[in-house]
């Protein structure tokens, strides 16, 4: 099976519970289990090839320019982790089916679990470090969902948040580290990076890269000082803890250290950082675990300790260390998953996980007792279980390690940690199962059904078998993965009995002392409780609280919800950023000579500046501001004519007309005056920001206009091909309806949506509270005596056919002369609006046969249909065709498919403009605006009409 498919199967499986959960949790569990099993089989099919030393790869190009490819590889290390992830995942799926209660949403659980499984498989199968990072982040996210699965528990939510914060930040650091690594190696491909040991270790960036990558690995694998999130994550349901903390999530950090071991290890930096951190974490976790009463807390800190042990072994940088590390990864996964499941069973059946309430379960739950005891003894490293063998190997490595000139220190600390792990393991057994039977358990404990017992039972069988026959059971996997890690042929010598040697003696002593510590646990606990010690959670919470407060202060300072504050800050930031870019960058010399200023242009300029200045000074008089807006718009239109942009001028001037009409209609209701409400200081600050923007924007425009294009423009293509391909002389119009037709299509759609938004808002204004307000509206200005003067009515009705003809003319000539659908649509809309203004809303509405919504829809459909028509000729969307025709009595004219597209634009523009203004008229009518005819198709206003 392709490695890509193996990684994809869990993700596919994540979709199934959502579809199948209505058929019951059995179906959901079986579907997930099937997908996992398929992936596991697919992975195992590669075992023979991997044992031969091959590396199976497959690669898909994703973003080659940044070196990100979807590459997969299966080597010994991937195989080891893949088998653990999928195999234990399968057992967890079974276990969770029986563990979760009726009230828990099981479908969600399986979806999260499969997502997580897929992300883990992605990490171990990636052959590209950037690709690996994608999955790395995915594990952080999906584990967040899993840890916080019981959303109703505050501890669950806090634990999930803490895990996400810590591992997420580590992930960010790791991204930086991986980028450095990839840059040194010249490739992000793991295969290539692994070949670049000399270059990487010689690079001055080796230490930064190492630190950043280790930050990611240590946070994920809960190494000191980032160990605190793991115990908090125990708020998750036990199947999650069993999966995340035995075989997967926390092992991802170990995986990464193992994966990059060939290029990063072997230096003093590596040894002192990794081995020391691992050793200290191992000791710290073991000590804390002894003094916890919650079963899962004991297991959590023991996990921290055991992870520290593997980290330490990898940190040694020796082949023997790697062999012991990968072997212990297998062993830890088996016994720790079994222990978590045991703790879950006890919790499930006895109703508590606290040792203060437990004890004596040996007689009540004999099978659970056997499973739990064997697994815990393996954790303690007791002969002849698998934990014993790897612990002996660890001790052997540790006592032969000299740390900073101290030949014994390393071994002594490792031995102390081993003693503590014996102690907490024995305490786990004695506190839960041994002792007298009690009568105050929250539930009545008894052994659960096979569904819960099967998974831990199978794992315990493995614990025993690997212990008795290590070479047969695990030798091949250890060999393959150790070979993959070290890149050399290793020959692990896994055996239960190595004769009487130093590690064996240490183990024996640890067992005795550990047992004594359990016996004298009470006084020890009192001493421990008396010792002052920092509580990681409190510190973490304080740091987070301070960070939130600081961020809030900054945020409130920049943006307190007032529009002016936000807009002002944004404007100032843009100007400052632009100024910075201008100062640090370099613009070429001014190459274009200035155009001469004609007298007309000078007059227009003065008018514009005066109008703009008046706008600022007199904007409080809102009607005057509208007049000024009209002047400014008119001069801008003239500027477009002058600067060789006739299409723009036509569009601008017609848009100007409808905009002013729209604002006038709105001003009918809004106050006519803006009162002075701001002090001089505020206005001065605003003026300062405005001046900065004006100077910067104008300066930028000037700088651009005085220089030639830095690169060849694509405009020449448009000029050269406007007639040849688009069949039109008006390059702007051809660009709109042909070259960039797709943009235009999007734009008319947006325009249509805007009009529909306006319609919808009007609808809500015409019902409920605001409708009553409107019905009782008192206008603050006197109404005109004669609202529909006869002259105006007659004139507009006479003009209508003429103006419609003009619209048609503008539309038809658009392809070759200034004009086109946009302008024609605006002209037609204006001529219709004149009827509304002159003859009144009701009169015009009565004669309006086509609803405006339909025109918008028709416009978009016509444009789309024209575009799709091209498909029938086997050419892409919106490819146009054209021809010239001659009708009697008329000039030769052109018909192009682009014209049909332009018709769509036309319809959409007419519909949108009319719908917007029509909506305003409807509001006006609701206030009791009378018309010159009795209303026919509108509900009469609720209040008596005003006389006119």
């Amino acid at each position, binding site marked *: 099976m392709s490695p890509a498919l193996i990684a994809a199967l869990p993700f596919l499986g994540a979709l199934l519970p959502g579809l199948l959960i209505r058929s019951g949790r059995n179906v959901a569990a079986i579907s997930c289990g099937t997908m996992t099993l398929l992936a596991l089989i697919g992975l195992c099919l590669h075992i023979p090839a991997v044992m031969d030393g091959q590396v199976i790869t497959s690669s898909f190009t994703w973003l080659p320019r940044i070196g990100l490819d979807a590459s997969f590889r299966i080597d010994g290390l991937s195989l080891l982790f893949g088998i653990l992830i999928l195999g234990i995942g399968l057992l967890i799926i079974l276990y969770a089916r029986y563990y979760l209660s009726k009230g828990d949403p099981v479908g969600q659980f399986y979806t999260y679990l499969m997502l997580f499984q897929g992300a883990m498989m992605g990490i171990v199968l990636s052959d590209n470090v950037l690709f690996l990072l994608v999955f790395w982040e995915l594990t952080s996210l999906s584990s967040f969902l899993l840890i916080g699965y019981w959303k109703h528990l505050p501890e669950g939510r806090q634990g999930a948040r803490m895990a996400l914060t810590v591992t997420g930040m580590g992930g960010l650091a790791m991204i930086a580290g991986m980028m450095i690594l990839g840059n040194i190696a010249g490739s992000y491909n793991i295969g290539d990076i692994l070949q670049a040991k000399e270059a990487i270790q010689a690079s001055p960036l080796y230490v930064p890269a190492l630190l950043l990558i280790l930050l990611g690995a240590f946070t994920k694998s809960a190494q000191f000082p980032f160990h605190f999130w793991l115990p908090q994550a125990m708020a998750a349901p036990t199947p999650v803890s069993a999966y995340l903390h035995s075989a997967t999530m926390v092992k991802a950090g170990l995986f990464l250290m193992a994966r990059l071991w060939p290029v990063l290890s072997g230096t003093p930096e590596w040894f002192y950082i990794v081995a020391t951190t691992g050793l200290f974490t191992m000791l710290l976790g073991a000590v804390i675990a002894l003094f916890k009463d919650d079963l899962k807390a004991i297991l959590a800190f023991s996990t921290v300790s055991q992870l520290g042990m593997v980290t330490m072994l990898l940190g040694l940088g020796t082949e023997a260390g790697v062999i012991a590390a990968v072997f212990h990864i297998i062993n830890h996964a088996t016994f720790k998953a079994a222990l978590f499941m045991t703790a879950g069973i006890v919790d499930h059946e006895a109703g508590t996980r606290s040792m203060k309430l437990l004890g004596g379960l040996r007689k009540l739950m004999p099978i659970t007792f056997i499973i739990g005891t064997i697994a815990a003894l393996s954790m303690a490293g007791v002969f002849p279980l698998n934990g014993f063998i790897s612990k002996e190997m660890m001790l052997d490595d540790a006592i032969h390690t000299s740390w900073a000139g101290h030949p014994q220190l390393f071994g002594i600390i490792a031995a102390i940690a081993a003693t503590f792990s014996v102690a907490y393991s024995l305490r786990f057994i004695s506190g839960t199962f041994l002792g007298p039977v009690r009568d105050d358990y929250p539930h009545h404990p008894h052994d659960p059904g096979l569904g819960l017992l099967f998974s831990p039972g199978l794992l315990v069988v493995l614990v025993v078998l690997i212990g008795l026959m290590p070479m047969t059971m695990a030798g091949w996997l250890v060999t393959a993965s150790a070979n993959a890690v070290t890149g050399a042929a290793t020959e692990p010598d896994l055996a239960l009995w190595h004769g009487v040697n130093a590690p064996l003696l240490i183990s024996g002593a640890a067992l005795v002392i550990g047992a004594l510590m359990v016996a004298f646990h009470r006084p020890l606990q009192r001493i421990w409780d008396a010792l002052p010690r920092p509580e990681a959670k409190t510190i973490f919470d304080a740091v987070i609280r301070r960070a939130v407060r600081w961020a809030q202060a900054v945020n409130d300072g920049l943006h307190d919800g*007032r529009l002016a504050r936000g807009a002002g800050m944004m*404007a100032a930031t843009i100007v400052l950023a632009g100024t910075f870019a201008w100062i640090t960058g370099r613009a070429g010399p001014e190459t274009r000579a200035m155009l001469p200023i004609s007298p007309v242009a000078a007059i227009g300029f003065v008018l514009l500046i005066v109008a703009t200045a008046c*706008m600022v000074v007199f904007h409080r008089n809102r009607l005057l501001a509208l007049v000024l807006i009209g002047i400014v718009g008119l001069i801008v239109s003239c500027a477009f004519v002058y*600067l060789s942009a006739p299409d723009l001028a036509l569009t601008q001037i017609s848009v100007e007309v409808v905009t002013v009409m729209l604002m006038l209609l709105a001003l009918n209701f809004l106050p006519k005056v803006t009162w002075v409400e701001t002090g001089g200081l505020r206005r001065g600050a605003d003026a300062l920001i*405005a001046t900065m923007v004006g100077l910067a*924007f104008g300066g930028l425009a000037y700088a651009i206009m005085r220089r030639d294009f830095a690169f060849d423009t694509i405009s*020449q293509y448009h000029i050269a091909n406007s007639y040849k391909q688009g069949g039109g002389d008006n390059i702007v119009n051809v660009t709109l309806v042909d070259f960039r037709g797709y943009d235009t299509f999007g734009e008319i759609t*947006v325009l249509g949506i805007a009009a529909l938004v306006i319609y919808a808002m009007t609808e809500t204004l015409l019902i409920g509270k605001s409708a009553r307000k409107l019905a009782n509206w008192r206008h603050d200005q006197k109404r005109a005596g004669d609202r529909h003067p006869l002259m105006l009515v007659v004139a507009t009705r006479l003009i209508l056919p003429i103006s419609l003809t003009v619209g048609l003319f503008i539309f038809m000539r658009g392809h070759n002369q200034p004009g086109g659908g946009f302008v024609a649509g605006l002209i037609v809309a204006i001529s219709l609006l004149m009827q509304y203004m002159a003859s009144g809303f009701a009169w015009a509405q009565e004669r309006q046969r086509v609803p405006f919504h339909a025109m918008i829809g028709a416009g978009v459909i016509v444009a789309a249909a024209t575009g799709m028509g091209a498909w029938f000729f086997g050419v892409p969307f919106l490819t146009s065709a054209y021809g010239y025709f001659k009708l009697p009595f008329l000039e030769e004219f052109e018909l192009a498919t682009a014209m049909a597209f332009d018709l769509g634009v036309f319809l959409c523009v007419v519909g949108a403009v009319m719908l917007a203004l029509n909506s305003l008229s409807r509001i006006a009518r609701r206030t009791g605006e009378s018309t010159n005819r009795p209303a026919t198709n509108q509900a009469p206003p609720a209040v008596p009409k005003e006389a006119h």
Partner: protein
Amino acid sequence: MEALVAIAIGAMSASGIYLVLRLRTFPVVIGMTMMSYAINLFLVATGRLAINKPPILQNHGAPDFSAYTDPLPQALTLTAIVISFGMTAVVVLLSLGAYIEGGDDYIDMPESDRREDGNAE
């Protein structure tokens, strides 16, 4: 000529920003309209200024590129003008609706509505 256009762009954008920073809806709408003018003119200006060179083909032979101004910014600006009308219309209706519903035409919510109460924790 370039200097005049640049000054016009600067003046219009400055007055636009000043009006956008006011407290009531109507000046803000007017300010946004002024900003649209400035930005549309700026977009056309990025094609560099040319007089009497409209982008309408004069003959169908080999094109003389120097005879026409840059058509591409014009095409983009044309749709920008129409879209800014749509935006203005929506904003006008919003401010009208807010005035009718809320009783005043302040652009910001009252202080009491704006402050969220307490922390998320």
